[in-house]
């Protein structure tokens, strides 16, 4: 694979807690290119938010710790939100929007001042220039009466409007990568559709890469070019959106799809039984073994290799091994190669 805009390699993050050390992220690799959208999908506690927080330097230390890995933006190391040259990346090169717009903005600052702040800090704008630009940005995210709105405080905005304001703030410095951590989870579907459209339009105009963290497969289908499925701190499947939805190669991905209602009436939903493993002491084999309907002896004993299903599609699953019995719903390549 040629060098992409942002490349993350072997990222590992752990947290000290009273119960011991939680291995929240256990060796994650992904990359995203300009103008593309990568969706990182997974359930609560799988480490998807921690992954992007580590890149942005938002892991509280202590108790958090990045124990291994690298993140490179155009070949320059940016892990922890600071580049090798000591330049602040966070908010300048990489913008971020958060799940809960109500609690992510400063309630004591006007919306305009909050959007202006990164321009003053990172781009050396004067306060007046920055405020004028903030109004333009509010217009860009389609907030009506932007000039008046810029002088208001967060409590005067609805949830959808706040999310727009947060997007305006995140894109103020024209970042090359925008990280959106569950940007629409707190919003109604009609407002979600507006925000997703807005993100798509902004991407077309600016060519920025988007990393979208979500648990909603509908949002993934709508937005993503590439998908990384996370489970228990690892990426278990990665590929194009079509590969992952139509040719899933990991039993967890398949399980997630089958747990959602299809277009048949009153068919039984097929939930994934059980719950994710304890990350205090992650299993030495595959973390999904206990819940996997296709688990084999080797799955418990040895950590699976990363199998290449096709050029851009990989699966962390022993079922992809040439000698494994292949369940019919799972796709697999004819000639498999593996890499560790």
């Amino acid at each position, binding site marked *: 694979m040629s060098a992409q805009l942002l490349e993350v390699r072997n990222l590992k993050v752990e947290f000290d807690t009273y119960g011991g050390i939680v291995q929240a992220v256990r060796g994650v690799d992904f990359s995203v290119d300009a103008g593309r959208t990568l969706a990182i999908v997974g359930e609560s506690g799988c480490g998807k938010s921690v992954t992007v927080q580590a890149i942005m330097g938002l892991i509280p230390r202590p108790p958090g710790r990045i124990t291994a890995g690298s993140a490179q933006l155009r070949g320059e190391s940016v892990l922890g939100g600071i580049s090798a040259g000591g330049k602040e990346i966070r908010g300048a090169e990489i913008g971020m929007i958060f799940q809960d717009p109500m609690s992510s903005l400063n309630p004591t600052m006007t919306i305009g001042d909050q959007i202006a702040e990164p321009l003053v800090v990172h781009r050396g704008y004067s306060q007046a220039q920055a405020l004028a630009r903030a109004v333009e940005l509010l217009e860009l995210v389609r907030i009506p009466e932007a000039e008046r709105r810029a002088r208001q405080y967060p409590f005067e905005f609805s949830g959808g409007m706040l999310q727009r304001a947060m997007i305006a703030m995140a894109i103020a410095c024209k970042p090359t990568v925008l990280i959106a951590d569950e940007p629409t989870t707190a919003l109604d579907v009609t407002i979600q559709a507006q925000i997703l459209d807005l993100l798509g339009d902004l991407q077309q105009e600016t060519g920025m890469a988007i990393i979208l963290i979500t648990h909603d497969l509908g949002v993934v289908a709508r937005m993503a070019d590439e998908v990384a499925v996370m489970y228990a701190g690892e990426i278990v499947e990665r590929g194009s959106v079509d590969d992952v939805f139509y040719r899933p190669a990991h039993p967890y991905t398949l399980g*997630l799809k089958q747990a959602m209602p299809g277009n048949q009436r009153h068919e039984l939903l097929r*939930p994934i039984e059980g719950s994710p493993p304890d990350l205090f002491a992650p299993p030495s084999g595959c973390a999904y073994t206990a819940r996997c309907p296709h688990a084999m002896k080797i799955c418990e004993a040895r950590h699976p290799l990363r199998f290449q299903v096709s050029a851009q599609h990989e699966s962390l699953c022993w079922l992809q091994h040439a000698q494994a019995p292949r369940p019919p719903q799972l796709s697999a390549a004819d000639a498999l190669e593996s890499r560790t």
Partner: protein
Amino acid sequence: MSGLVRINELVRYFDLGKGQRVHAVDHVSLDIAEREVVGLVGESGSGKSTLGKTLLGLHDKTAGTVTYRGEELPARYHPKDFQRFARRMQMIFQDPYSSLNPRMTVGEIIAEGLLLNRLANASEARGRTVDWLQRVGLNADHLSRYPHEFSGGQRQRIGIARALIVNPEFVVCDEPISALDVSVQAQVVNLLNELKESLGLTMLFIAHDLSMVRYISDRMAVMYLGALVEIGPADDVYFEPLHPYTQILVASNPEPDPESERQRLSTTIKGEIPSPVNVPEGCRFAGRCPHVMDVCRQQTPALREVQGRLVACHLYDGGEQK
């Protein structure tokens, strides 16, 4: 149709003072037949939770009536009314984190309804609590534990056991799965479906996830700004919505299918749900409706029968869409 629950012109306003009031539920009528599951969908602020709570007496009724098996429920519940009706009508709450008392053990939480209603003595209550724990996929070891020791999905199961142990006939499920992960949602929905079948429950299932509501409901009711705008068989409403608001709601719901998402035309609705304090004259949806006509701003459309369901929209005044 003889409904188990008949809601007639139910109104619930909240006074804000200075002559202003929130029209949370504004003249809603709905019949729910025995063993029927009615899904209630709408955006936040549309009044769906208030409707569910007013129905059960958790809010006083401002006007209108609710009858249950032909008996009119009091407009304002006294403590003894709760005792009387709570045995037959129960609620499963949205947030499994805040709806369980953190200082009570799971055993105490689940058995409380039985003991308060004197449906069982202490030892019977314990036996039935253990039964119910097993029924919802937990076990007797969990009796003496506290809510914080459980995951979201497990807590929702505790909430379900708590509501159903008194053997109610009618259950209001207020967004029971919204706080849960996809794989766990399916577990809880399957459990509810199974219990509905085995206990013959009648349910009002409130949610904003349209595909899940369609999956579990017989009929679907769509609420906008305090009023119902469309009621009909769940599949019809989902696959062929008639009211412009339902059409937009369905179209906004992203499907887990990249191919159909690529072909989806942008159906983004303009604006946001208006404030329920100053409800506009005429149709409540007129300000955001892509098909708005002059009449919409003057006359409030009534629910009328269109193609085997009820729709409140002037587009169907002649029976068919103009």
